[in-house]
């Protein structure tokens, strides 16, 4: 700004002294430049881009935004990604199977940061976060191909879909007997439209009823259902495997830290009748150590330490028919809390609560839990309602 003012005055003096004839033109040009600078200053995208480009290479900015790694809002910048997500942005060749296996650790480490900026693009508040899957058995890590090992071979896929070849042969023949180029083109377009309809459907074989009998459609559907049922079962088995995560969340604002939260969570499915059955229940255990700023004492930072341990069992009551995701689930467990520093007046140092939570799915990975807690220390019931994001799905 100062440079602009000085330059403006220098230009004024110079123009008066020796180039008076250009004064109006220069003044007009400067006015335009100033007007553009004012527009740019008001433009969030330009402002943020200039900040971001100092942190990362500018040419990747759009890719980071496009992939949801960077989100910007009103004076706010949020970054959230696994390390693998970043590697893929900066090196697009890392999509192959070998890289996927090699960078397993990078997919199991997610970091995030929220930055609030003032009007001069200076950082006002900073909220870093980190989640690491220490143990993640929900990913298949065997050396043999997962499908070969579990009996879903190429031969099985070919067998399950073989009846469809009859429809394919008939459709091909209908085109190949046509000699007139225009009519051939029209027929290809018509078949393309039918195939497109099938490709967009949930594998609806009845679309080919012109070329397949009802019995053939039924048999085809039955064979495909049998094969995909096997796949679904294997998938569900993996989704109940052990998962141990460590999470960290920090908060910095007003020149001091106001939050340093740590958590260790463990989840595993159990209750199936055999080894390969889908687990009926989920066992959950979590320990939390939250170091926060006392909301009643904002002069010093991090003056309240709370340790919490939770244990319980989760049961999905209703599932979505299409994707098998939970619609309503219930969690029953216990929670122990110990406040080692920063106890409020009248507050107990430690207590035990019995917890019953019903969670209702609002959107993919977004739940509304209704918590009913019985405080064994005070003998009172407490109710809570809060939105919850399903972090487990990050590592799927």
């Amino acid at each position, binding site marked *: 700004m100062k440079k602009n003012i000085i330059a403006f005055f220098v230009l004024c003096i110079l123009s008066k002294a020796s180039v008076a004839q250009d004064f109006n033109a220069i003044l007009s040009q400067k006015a335009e430049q100033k007007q553009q600078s004012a527009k740019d200053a008001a433009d969030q995208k330009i402002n943020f881009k200039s900040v971001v480009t100092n942190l990362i290479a500018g040419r990747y900015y759009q890719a980071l935004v496009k992939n949801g790694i960077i989100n910007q809002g009103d004076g706010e910048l949020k970054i959230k990604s696994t390390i693998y997500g970043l590697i893929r942005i900066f090196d697009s060749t890392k999509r192959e199977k070998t890289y996927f296996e090699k960078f397993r650790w990078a997919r199991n480490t997610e970091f995030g940061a929220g930055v609030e900026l003032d009007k001069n693009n200076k950082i006002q508040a900073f909220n870093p976060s980190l989640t690491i899957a220490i143990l993640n058995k929900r990913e298949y890590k065997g050396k043999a191909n997962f499908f070969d090992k579990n009996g879903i071979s190429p031969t099985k896929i070919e067998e399950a879909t073989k009846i*469809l*070849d009859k429809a394919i042969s008939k459709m*091909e023949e209908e085109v190949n007997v046509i000699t007139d180029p225009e009519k051939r083109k029209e027929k290809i377009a018509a078949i393309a439209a039918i195939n497109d309809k099938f490709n967009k459907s949930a594998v609806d074989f009845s679309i080919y009823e012109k070329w397949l009998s009802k019995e053939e459609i039924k048999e085809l559907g039955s064979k495909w259902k049998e094969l995909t049922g096997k796949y679904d079962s294997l998938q569900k088995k993996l989704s109940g495997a052990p998962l141990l995560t460590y999470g960290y969340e920090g908060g910095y604002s007003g020149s001091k830290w106001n939050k340093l939260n740590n958590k260790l969570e463990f989840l595993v499915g159990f209750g199936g009748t055999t080894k390969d059955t889908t687990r009926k229940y989920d066992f959950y255990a979590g320990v939390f150590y939250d170091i926060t700023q006392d909301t009643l004492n904002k002069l010093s930072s991090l003056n309240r330490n709370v340790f919490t341990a939770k244990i319980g069992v989760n049961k999905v009551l209703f599932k979505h028919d299409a994707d098998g995701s939970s619609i309503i689930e219930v969690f029953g467990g216990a929670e122990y809390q110990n406040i080692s520093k920063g106890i409020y007046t009248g507050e107990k140092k430690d207590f035990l609560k019995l917890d019953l939570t019903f969670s209702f799915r609002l959107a993919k990975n977004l739940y509304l839990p209704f918590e009913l807690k019985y405080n064994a220390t005070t003998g009172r019931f407490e109710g809570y309602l809060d939105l919850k994001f399903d972090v487990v799905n990050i590592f799927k």
Partner: protein
Amino acid sequence: MPTVRVNVRLELGSQYQIIIKIGGQVLHFQDSGSQTISLDSRFYIAKIAGFQDPTNTNSTVFVEFKQASTVLNSITIDERKFIKLLNVDVN
């Protein structure tokens, strides 16, 4: 006899089982790659069927049929279990 190159690109996963059947020939893919086949000059419908990584919700498969430098047809599949039929007109 014309040759057709079948390119398959598998993204964000390590476990795949995919078959592509065209003109009676069955190709098998478990990783990204290309395979070349000889076909008569006529109209075909390719059957693409298989499964993607059961542990990765973002798996995507891209399949492309090329004759010399001409792309005959292509498809992007993001379902985890799928059957797709694709027109391939070989010149």
